[in-house]
């Protein structure tokens, strides 16, 4: 394996560096989750012409910290008739699924926790583990709302995994690689080489650009559905199902679900950034290009996608179940097939 991890170059491969490599993304997720929660609170408030939290710290920036402390103090309730083992295991499985995806996310040209060659495949496989956690949590709670939320979540996940997979597959066709680090390095040299604009190539790529842009949008919509966010939040629609699959969870276990949702948001944004928006590449060629600037560009782009998700959440109302299925199977799937065929044709002719 080529050197894609600066920690191994610096300190060699031993137990401590492995631990550091494992915990570095965790540290990042913790800080990111606090920022994302604050962004969610503030942007929702501004869209509704409110101020949002203003009392905890200057302009309320300590509000997410206060909420985490509050959740830590809350009583941990386990329903009497629930299946105890599954009930207690579910939040950890969901968070494991969300966090395991960070293993292959290339934060910079010099840092990816595990630079494996089947990165994209791995992300998709791991993404389904959180679905397992949702079913476990919903079923074990012994609550009709939880069970219905879990069922809806699974049907939604199955419907939207396919267009997302088609979008990723198209990029794999273009790059002939599933290694996310390689896909990132292929897109260097300015935003014109990003896969949202057809990837590197001459003027002959012009006719494929509408299809790649379409695939980016399709992947983004599918990723919204995968992370159970509005307008695809029918698994946890408050007005219908109380809180969906995590109705019965309280305290720290609820915090784990919450945390996993935000981690998942970042994972799908990071994948979108890596495969379509150039990963850690600077949008201006060699300007501000480098391992450290790579971290900056990667987090900036990913966070922009996260903000886009938050923005959409506070704009659109929730889909009905039949509308959700209509969009998934009758719109996104055929369109992604068409785009896939077009891109395959392009890759073949090139």
């Amino acid at each position, binding site marked *: 394996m080529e050197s894609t991890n600066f920690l191994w170059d610096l300190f060699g491969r031993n137990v401590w560096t492995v631990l550091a490599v494992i915990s570095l993304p965790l540290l990042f997720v913790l800080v990111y989750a606090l920022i994302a929660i604050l962004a969610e609170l503030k942007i929702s408030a*501004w869209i509704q*012409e*409110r101020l949002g939290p203003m009392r905890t710290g200057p302009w309320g920036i300590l509000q997410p910290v206060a909420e985490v402390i509050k959740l830590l103090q809350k009583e941990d309730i386990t329903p009497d008739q629930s299946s105890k083992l599954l009930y207690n295991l579910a939040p950890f499985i969901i968070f494991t699924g969300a966090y395991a995806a960070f293993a292959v996310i290339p934060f910079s040209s010099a840092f990816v926790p595990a630079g494996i060659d089947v990165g994209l495949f791995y992300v998709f496989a791991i993404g389904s583990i959180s679905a397992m956690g949702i079913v476990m949590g919903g079923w074990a709670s012994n609550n009709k709302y939880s069970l219905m939320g879990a069922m809806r979540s699974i049907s939604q996940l199955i419907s939207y995994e396919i267009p997302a997979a088609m979008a990723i597959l198209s990029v794999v066709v273009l790059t002939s690689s599933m290694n996310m680090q390689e896909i990132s390095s292929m897109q260097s040299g300015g935003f014109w080489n990003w896969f949202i604009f057809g990837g590197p190539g001459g003027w002959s790529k012009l006719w494929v650009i509408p299809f790649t842009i379409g695939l980016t949008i399709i992947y983004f919509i599918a990723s919204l559905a995968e992370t159970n966010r509005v307008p695809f939040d029918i698994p946890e629609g408050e007005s219908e199902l109380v809180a969906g699959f995590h109705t019965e969870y309280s305290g720290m276990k609820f915090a784990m679900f919450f945390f996993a949702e935000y981690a998942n948001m970042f994972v799908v944004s990071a994948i979108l950034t890596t495969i379509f928006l150039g990963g850690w590449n600077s949008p201006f060629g060699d300007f501000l290009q480098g391992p450290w600037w790579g971290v900056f560009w990667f987090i900036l782009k990913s966070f922009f996608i996260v903000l886009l998700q938050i923005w959409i959440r506070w*704009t*659109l109302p929730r889909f009905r179940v039949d509308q959700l299925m209509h969009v998934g199977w009758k719109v996104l799937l055929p369109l992604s097939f068409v785009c896939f065929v077009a891109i395959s044709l392009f890759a073949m002719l090139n």
Partner: protein
Amino acid sequence: MFEYFKNIWSGFTTALHGMAITSSHIFAKSVTIQYPDEKLTLPSNARNRLQLEMSRCNACNSCAVACPVNCITVEGTRVSPDDPQQDVHWDGKPRKMWVTRYEIDFAKCCFCGLCQSACPTDAIKHTVEYEYSEYDRNKLLYKFQTLSPAEAEEKKRLLAEFRAKEKEKECSSTAGKAHEAKE
């Protein structure tokens, strides 16, 4: 087929349109008023805590009668002419009634404003003061009388003495008249 693409296009563009609308609201001025730090100025006819002006009140009991929730208690006693302490109203006219008790229970008050309109002398009025919540409900019983209970008893005694004296005088005079008439 055309309809299908038209639907997709309109779904996509309307979502973008909605996002344009919400983004314009992000930069609009917030409508929030951060209450303890900034307060709205209430209109001068706002109906909040009641205030009694003792120099106008003549214990006529109209407010207590008008009150739909019986939160006002008024007791008065006439001023004895022999009283060494004589008071005047705000307009300089002599006071004829001592207000021995004037209590408003704000735990009951419903801020209807009927007492204010019933008052013949404009003594009771709603103010714009609304921050007077208490931890103890009994603290909401406001006592507006200026006389202490001992003083109130004194005024009642003075009036009773004066009345008794009057009656005695009347009795003796009527007895005298009767005597004259007989003769």
